[in-house]
């Protein structure tokens, strides 16, 4: 009996095929691949958006990971990572923590940071971190 769920096999993967056009907001959970055209907004708190070579997104994107092979016109806000692959064209500002750009990709926009504020460091190599932070005038 399996006690641990196999998340990979239960992942909800959606496909918006070539020739399909959507106007409006798209909210998804795990993963969505776009080979058609989307106009509006694309939102996923923890999901991955893959824009295929034939995909065109004229939308505001707010996701966890955004992998781009096609065309994007709009701002992309990806909490963890943005990948822009060759032959893709992006016009819009990017906000992310990790940006991967392949040679040949076109990016026309500003790149900034988007990373959740760190309330307290979970992994710290020094236990006495307060002592290591330099106190000036103390």
């Amino acid at each position, binding site marked *: 009996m399996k006690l641990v769920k196999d998340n990979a096999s239960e992942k909800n993967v959606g496909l918006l095929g070539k020739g399909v056009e959507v106007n409006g907001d798209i909210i998804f959970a795990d993963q969505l691949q776009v080979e058609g055209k989307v106009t509006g907004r694309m939102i996923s708190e923890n999901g*991955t958006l893959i824009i295929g070579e034939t995909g065109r997104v004229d939308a505001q994107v707010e996701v*966890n*990971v955004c992998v781009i092979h096609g065309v994007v016109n709009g701002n992309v806000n*990806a*909490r*963890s*990572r943005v*990948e822009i692959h*060759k032959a893709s064209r992006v016009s819009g500002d990017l906000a*992310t*923590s*990790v*940006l*991967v*750009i*392949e*040679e*040949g990709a076109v990016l026309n926009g500003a*790149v*900034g*940071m988007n*990373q959740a*504020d*760190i*309330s*307290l*460091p*979970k*992994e*710290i*190599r*020094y236990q006495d*971190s*307060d002592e*290591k*932070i*330099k*106190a*000036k005038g*103390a």
Partner: protein
Amino acid sequence: MRRWIELSRKIMSLATELMSLIKPRRADSNAKTQAPVTLRIAGYNLILMDHDGQVVWTNEWDTGGIFDLRPHHSISVFCKFTNHSSNEAEISEYEIELVAEDGLVLKRFGSSFGDSVIVMPGQSKVFSGQWRL
């Protein structure tokens, strides 16, 4: 006439042997030069250091899943540090480490400041680095 035929056969067989010795070497050398260099990245660390090179603060993040960094790819990493202590944090140098799934550090890059950067209590600073494979 026979001698000539035998001699030419011998020369041919020697040439074939020589070719068989040379070919595998060529194949090996090609395999080495064409070996793909791909880094499978699962996360990244930020390490902040003071002017003595002592680690002041460190943290790690995941990249939202494992991904491959291949030749002709460049990567930019943005890390945010917020000083939640009641003291000023003095930072002279920082390093960003790209790590594999098993925690192995694949690449390390960073920068140092001529004058230390002071992060006041409650304030944040973004440390970024770029690297190309």
